[in-house]
């Protein structure tokens, strides 16, 4: 390949990426500009892109008209409980499935994997009825307790992820520890987990974002306003304040920003996370 050819090629790639990137980013730009405009300017046609003046009051207005601080606190309580439970129980299960020998281990692991194919709709109604019958509706229990059972259902993906990673750690390390009289519990905490930080980070990120984005769960289980999460609060806000677009856009931006910040800081883990899963045949 000649030098010139590769230059032409690179330029073409760059132009394509920039054009596509513009399409990807335009909705966000639209969101940001609308969040910073007062309602008169939002409805000007043809639309303007630069707010004049910047309506910073949208943020205080939006956040003041709904208890968003409360929603944020609720979301974070659920986050902490779910992320901790998922990482702990999924890692332990994966440790058992990959590094402890016991009869039936592969059969059970295979059985768990079939759960990934199950549409969530099948378990949705009975699970709801079950939580209702133990009086757990309108509490955080249905949203957090399944995480302490290896994430139940969707959590199998995390077990798989941990297991794939654990299999790459040399088994001699465990054996050495066992000879020194360690229990599997000690090997897990002292040998395996310290070497598994990358995969822990990946599971933490994916779980965190899953909870942050979850809408159906809170919609089903939370009924009193004081227990709402951010996603639920925003959806309620959408139907109540359809006239106040500036407020609505400002509130949306507040819900999106933390996730985007996390992504920018931890960007490389996102791609690595998928590479780790060994998607390839």
């Amino acid at each position: 390949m000649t030098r010139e050819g590769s230059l032409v090629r690179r330029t073409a790639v760059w132009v394509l990426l920039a054009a596509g990137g513009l399409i990807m980013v335009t909705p966000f730009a639209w969101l940001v500009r609308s969040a910073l405009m007062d309602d008169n300017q939002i409805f000007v046609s043809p639309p303007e892109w630069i707010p004049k003046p910047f309506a910073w009051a949208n943020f205080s207005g939006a956040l003041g008209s709904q208890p968003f601080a409360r929603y944020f606190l609720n979301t974070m309580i659920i986050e902490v409980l779910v992320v901790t439970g998922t990482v702990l129980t999924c890692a332990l299960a994966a440790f058992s499935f990959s590094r402890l020998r016991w009869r039936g281990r592969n059969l059970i692991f295979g059985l768990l994997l079939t759960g990934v194919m199950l549409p969530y709709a099948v378990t949705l109604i009975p699970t709801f009825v079950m939580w209702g019958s133990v009086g757990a509706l309108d509490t955080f229990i249905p949203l957090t307790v399944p995480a302490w059972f290896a994430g139940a259902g969707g959590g199998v993906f995390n077990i798989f992820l941990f297991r794939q990673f654990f299999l790459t750690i040399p088994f001699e390390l465990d054996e050495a520890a066992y000879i020194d009289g360690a229990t599997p519990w000690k090997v897990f905490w002292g040998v395996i987990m310290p070497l598994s930080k990358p995969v822990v980070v990946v599971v933490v990120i994916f779980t965190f974002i899953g909870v942050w984005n979850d809408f159906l769960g809170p919609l089903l289980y939370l009924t009193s306003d004081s227990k709402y999460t951010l996603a639920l609060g925003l959806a309620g806000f959408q139907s109540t304040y359809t006239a106040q677009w500036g407020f609505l856009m400002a509130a949306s931006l507040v819900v999106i920003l933390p996730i985007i910040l996390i992504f920018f800081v931890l960007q490389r883990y996102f791609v690595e996370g998928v590479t780790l899963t060994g998607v390839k045949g």
Partner: protein
Amino acid sequence: MRAERRWGWLLAAPAILGFGIFTIGPMIASLFFSLTDWQIGAPAKFIGLGNYRQLGHDPLFWKSLNVTTYYTLGVVPLTLVVGFVIAMLVNQGIRGRGFWRTVYYLPTLVPAVASSVLWIWIFNPDFGLLNSMLRQAGLPTSSWIYGEQSAVPSLILMSTWGFGNAMVIFLAGLQGVPRQLYEAVAIDGGGTWARFRHVTLPFMTPTIFYNLVTGTIGTFQVFNQAYIMTQGGPNNATEFYIYYLYTKAFTDSEIGYASALAWVLFVIVLVITVLLFRNARRWVYYEMGAAR
């Protein structure tokens, strides 16, 4: 070693219990519910296959199946093609790769509620971004999610914007294509197309297949847009399957009927998955001796 066996069961216990309590148990319960006439607040009455028979005569069931199939047939191929092309572009040795990957992945991160709110506004026929742009370009405008014909295509467009997950998985797959083979093609005088056709594409078929299966299962279960953006309207044009199931169960309290809906969906997804796997033997290429 008896101790090892005990520890094995003990540490896997939460996962095994979770599977029993939150997957197997509800599955069996769901099947049982689907054979009853059960409205919340009244006792359940066993009616055998009554709910399933009723499904056949329910126009909204067929409508929701149609809408969901239409949506899946739109979103899955589009996401695969766009995701694949962009993954190949951001896999080139260009400057700012991380930046481009971020830009294309960004929409996937946005909470469904926030992106729904944003797109309601983009689709607004009077003041929305899309119609404003069309007007400025002198093109005919659309009623987007507010038109019976245009509602589902609009949601397909919106969902394709979030192709980032497919792209990331394609990127992971591209890392596994053996570089030496490209050189072999070059020695044989093959150009860019030959490299793509004879090396990249065959080696990517397992990844394409993975995205096809998970994408199909995922789009068959779409809910948020129907609930937040259109409430199934206009005139049931966006009556997605799970949205219909949700309203049956949690608005009309018809637990038995909704459970039958859930089981029919389960069977549909199962059949599609089996068909895809059968068909895969003909085109998915697995590297010989790639046993790891």
